[in-house]
C-alpha cells in the first residue's frame, strides 16, 4: 500500500480525531450511527461514479437519473397518487429506468463520440425532464411499509439503508476486482488503445459501465425516496459534484486508471464526517461550504505533495 492509497485514510483518521477533540457531541455512538446513515446515499452514488471515473470519463448525470428513479419508485410502490403497489418490483423497475438513462449516456458517448462530460450533462437534463413529467404537479408520497421502513428499521444500530450501502460497496468492490467489466473499466482508464490492439471491443464495456453507474444512481434515488417518504424531482440535487469530490478525495484519479470503490468509500466518509463535524463544532452555516472546500483542497494537496515531480503533468 503506497502513501497515495493510505493518504486519504490517514486524513480521515486525523479529521475524526480533531472533531472528537473539539466536540463532545461528535464522540458519541449515536453520532457515529448518524454519520454512517448520512453517508449511505452518497456511498451508493459514489460507487457508480467511481467506475466511470476509473475509465477516465466523467459523469454529471446523477441529479437527473436520481430524480427520475425517485419519482418512478414513488409512483410504483403504494402511494397517494395511484393504485400501484408493486413493492420491491417497483424498486427494481425504478432502478431499471435509471440504468436505461445511464445506458443512454454511454450510447451517446460511443456512438456519437461526444465526450461524456456533455452526454451525461444532457442525460441529466433528460432525466429531470422525465421526472417532472411523471411528477405532474402532485407530490407522490409513499405508503409502502417496506420502502419507508428502510430508513427507520435498524439492525446492529444501523438503518437498513446503511446496510444497503455497505452491500453496494461490497458488490462494487467485487465487480471491480472479480469481473471482466470492472477490470476492463480499470484498463480503459489505464490504456484504452491497448485494449483495442488486444482485440477487445471497448464500446460495450463503456456502455455497460455507464449503465451500471446509472443503476447505482437509481438505487440512490430510491434510497432518498425512502428517507423522505416522498418522490422528489430534486432527489439528486448536488449529488453530482459531491460524489465526484468524494471519489477524488478518496484517491480515485480523474484521469482514470487508479483508485476504486474502497478508495471512494473512504472519500465518502471523509466528506460526510466533515459536514457532520462542522455542524457539531458550531461553524456558522455561511462558512461551512468554504471550510469544506478548503479542507478538500488541503486533503488532496497533502496526498499529492509527497509525489510531486518536476515536469509532472497536472491537468
Amino acid at each position, binding site marked *: 500500500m503506497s502513501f497515495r492509497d493510505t493518504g486519504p485514510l490517514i486524513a480521515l483518521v486525523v479529521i475524526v480525531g480533531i472533531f472528537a477533540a473539539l466536540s463532545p457531541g461528535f464522540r458519541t455512538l449515536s453520532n457515529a450511527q448518524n454519520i454512517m446513515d448520512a453517508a449511505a446515499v452518497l456511498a451508493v452514488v459514489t460507487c457508480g461514479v467511481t467506475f466511470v471515473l476509473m475509465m477516465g470519463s466523467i459523469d454529471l448525470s446523477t441529479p437527473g437519473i436520481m430524480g427520475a428513479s425517485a419519482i418512478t419508485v414513488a409512483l410504483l410502490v403504494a402511494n397517494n397518487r395511484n393504485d400501484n403497489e408493486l413493492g420491491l418490483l417497483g424498486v427494481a423497475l425504478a432502478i431499471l429506468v435509471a440504468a436505461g438513462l445511464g445506458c443512454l449516456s454511454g450510447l451517446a458517448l460511443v456512438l456519437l463520440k461526444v465526450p461524456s462530460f456533455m452526454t451525461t450533462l444532457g442525460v441529466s437534463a433528460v432525466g429531470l425532464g422525465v421526472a417532472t413529467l411523471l411528477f405532474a404537479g402532485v407530490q407522490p408520497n409513499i405508503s409502502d411499509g417496506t420502502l419507508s421502513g428502510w430508513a427507520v428499521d435498524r439492525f446492529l444500530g444501523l438503518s437498513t439503508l446503511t446496510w444497503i450501502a455497505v452491500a453496494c460497496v461490497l458488490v462494487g468492490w467485487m465487480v471491480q*476486482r*472479480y*469481473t*471482466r*467489466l470492472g*477490470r476492463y473499466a*480499470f*484498463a480503459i*482508464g*489505464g*490504456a484504452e*488503445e*491497448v*485494449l*483495442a*490492439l*488486444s*482485440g*477487445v471491443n471497448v464500446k460495450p464495456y463503456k456502455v455497460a459501465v455507464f449503465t451500471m453507474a446509472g443503476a447505482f444512481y437509481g438505487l440512490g434515488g430510491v434510497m432518498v425516496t425512502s428517507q423522505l417518504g416522498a418522490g422528489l424531482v430534486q432527489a439528486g440535487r448536488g449529488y453530482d459534484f459531491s460524489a465526484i469530490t468524494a471519489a477524488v478525495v478518496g484517491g480515485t484519479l480523474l484521469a482514470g*486508471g*487508479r483508485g476504486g470503490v474502497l478508495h471512494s468509500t473512504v472519500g465518502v466518509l471523509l466528506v460526510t464526517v466533515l459536514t457532520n463535524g462542522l455542524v457539531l463544532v458550531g461553524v456558522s452555516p455561511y462558512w461551512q461550504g468554504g471550510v469544506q472546500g478548503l479542507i478538500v483542497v488541503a486533503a488532496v494537496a497533502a496526498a499529492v505533495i509527497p509525489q510531486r515531480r*518536476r*515536469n509532472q503533468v497536472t491537468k
Partner: protein
Amino acid sequence: MNMQIEPEQRATAPVTALEVRGLVKHYPGVKALDGVDLVVRQHEVVGLAGENGAGKSTLLKALVGLVRPDDGEIWVRGEKVRLRSVVDAADHGIGMVFQEQSLVPNLTVAENIVLGSEGLGVRRGVYRWDAMRRLAQEQLDKIGSRIDPLARTDTLTFADRQMVEIAKVLRIEERTSHPPVIILDEPTSVLESKEIDALFTQVRRLREFASVVFVSHRLDEVLDVCDRVAVLRGGQSVGELPTADAAPDQLHRMMIGSTGSDDHYHGAAVEPPAEPREPRLVVRGLCGRTFRDVDLDVHAGEIVGIVGVHGSGREDVCRALFGAEPTTAGEVTLDGEELDLSGTRAACAAGVGYVPAERKTEGMVGPMSVADNMTLTKQEARCSGPLVRPRKQAKLVDTWIQRLSIRTPHRGTPIQRLSGGNQQKVVLARWLVSGDVRLLLLDHPTRGLDIGARSEVYRLMRELASSGVATVLLADSLEEAIGMSDRIVVMNDGRATTEVDAPVGDKPTPLDLVKEMV
C-alpha cells in the same frame, strides 16, 4: 516449452505459413504500399528492413488487421484471408508485438497476457484469478520467464514488459492448430544490449514452434537473428537476401537504393583542440534521486557519450542538467558561470538544449505545425518585442527546413504527419534557430529512426560540434556511442565510474565498455 509442437511438422519441408501478394494501400497523398510481396515459411525468422516511410508499419498493420489494404491478397497456409481486426488475425494465427508497448500499465501481468481472450480465466464475466494465473504462467513458461503473473505491469522493467508482450502474443497458439506467425516490430529499440541478447534467445526459441517476422532498424541485429531479410523501399518490395552471406552494407544499399557510406558514424574527423582549454561544462558532485557524486567535463566542440545499463541513472543526469529533474547537491558551471538547475526555462536561457528520448510524448507537440514546434522555445527567433512576426517566423523556419533537408509538405503541416526522422530534425532545429545553444543534451536522438535519417542526425551532430557546441549524447547503442563520441563516460548504479577516450582511429571496442558497465 514448445509442448504444442508435433514433431512431424518440424520435420517436413518448409511450408509457406504466410504469403502476401501485391499489397496496395493508399493514404491521402501517399501510396504507403505499392505492390508488396512477402513470403514467410514455417519455422523461419524473416527480417523486414526498410527506411522509415518504406511501408514497413503499414504492411505489419495490414497483417494484423489494423489496416485494410486497397488491393492485393494475404494468404495464410494456402488459404486466402481477409483480416478485419486483430482478433481476425489472431484466429488465423498471426500476432504482433507492437513497437509502442501494448500493455495496460495498471493491470496485472496475468491479465495483460490473457487480455481479450481470457478463456477459462473468466466465467460468465467473473474473473477466476487462479485459472488466470495458471493460463499466464503457461505462457510465461513457454518463454522460460520467471515474472510473477500477479505483479502489476507498471512495476516491471522495460525488458520484462517486453517478455510479457511476447508471452501475450503466444496466446494465439490456442486459437489455431497451426504454428503461429509472430511479428516483432522494433522490439530492440529501447533495450540495452544484455536485454537484446535475451530477446534474441527468445526469438531463436520461437523459431522452434512458430514463424517470426522481425523488424528492426539495426541491420546488424537483423542479420544476426534472421534467416532471410526482405527489403522494402518506397512501398515496394525491392528484394530479399539470405542473411548467411549478407553484410550490413549490402542491405543498406538495397534499402536506400544506392551505395551509402560504409561508416555512417564518422563523416569527417574533427581536429582535437590543440591545447587543453577550460571545459565548457563542468559538473562536480552532482546528486539526485537516482545518481550520486557525478563529475563530468565537456569541452566546446566535443561530443561526450554517457553509456550505462538501465538504472545507471544516465537519463536522469541528462534531465537534471536541463533542470527537468531535481538535484540535491553538486555544482554545475557552464563557461565558468554557475548553471541554474531550478527549471527548464533557466537552463534554456543559459544556452542549454535538450532532445528527449520520448519524441512523441515529450519531444514534440503532435497536432501543432512544424513551424510552431520549431519556434516553441526561442521567442526571439519569431518575435520582435512581444509580437509574433509571421513572416519572420516563416522565413526562418523555411531556412531551417532547407538547411536540415526536412521533408514536409509545408511549414504549417502538423508535425505528427512527418516521418520520425524529420520530426527529430524539427525537434533539434528548435535549439538551433536562435544560434545561441552552447550545450546540447541528446537523449537517444536516433531512437526509432532508419539508417538514412540517422546518418543525417549524425551529420548534424558533427556539424554542431565543429561549430563549437558541447554535446552530451546518450546513444541508442554502444556502437553509436563509440562511433559518435570523442570521449565516453560509463555510468554504473548512479555513479560515473570510468572515462574512456575515444578519438578517431583509436576507438574502444564495445566489449571494453560492457566490462565497465556491469
